[in-house]
């Protein structure tokens, strides 16, 4: 069974501090991993995906297959980064395509 674990329910930092939101996964094959973000009063939207190897809004995430992790990082947090962040995994199982989300981490960036 596939599983995504986000151990921190809440992460609180000051503006300019580094941020790391943790994500660990369990999957027997080669998963596709994503970070989605939900800003206040907005809908869930894609932040980045590991296959694109991109940096979005200063955030990066590296897939570590040895540690089965996909942590989200940003060197200098901004107040506008305050939001709910969800790590997600998609994998094909028996020909079916099942997305699995973590429970989310609320990031609060203080001025």
């Amino acid at each position, binding site marked *: 069974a596939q599983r995504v674990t986000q151990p921190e329910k809440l992460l609180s930092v000051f503006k300019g501090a580094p941020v790391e939101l943790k994500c660990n996964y369990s999957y027997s094959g080669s998963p596709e991993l994503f970070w989605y973000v939900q800003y206040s009063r907005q*809908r*869930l*939207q894609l932040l980045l995906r590991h*296959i694109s190897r991109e940096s979005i809004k200063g955030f990066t995430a590296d897939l570590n297959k040895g540690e089965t992790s996909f942590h989200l990082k940003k060197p200098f947090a901004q107040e506008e980064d305050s939001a709910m962040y*969800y790590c*997600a995994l998609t*994998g094909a199982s028996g020909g079916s395509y099942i*997305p699995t*989300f973590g429970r989310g981490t609320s990031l609060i960036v203080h001025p």
Partner: protein
Amino acid sequence: GAGVSQSPRYKVAKRGQDVALRCDPISGHVSLFWYQQALGQGPEFLTYFQNEAQLDKSGLPSDRFFAERPEGSVSTLKIQRTQQEDSAVYLCASSFGLTTYNEQFFGPGTRLTVL
């Protein structure tokens, strides 16, 4: 262009009542997903469609839940004989293809409260 829309945005139902939740995906998107999100949790997969075919419904919690997408566009999630544990936000998402790296575009959700 317009994003994914859902209606109603809020629904209050008495226990035992049937409800129908609608999702309008982005035009041309082949795949459509339904999720249930309980308070303080991430979205939980319910079912998904590729065009009009329901390819997986393993996440539906009981046989009271039924989803359809008869013409490969609009989808309806129906819950029969609602129970209090059905109270949640129901999210719909669509994506252009079915490859595992396709971005999902989410609707605003329908908040269902069962009294």
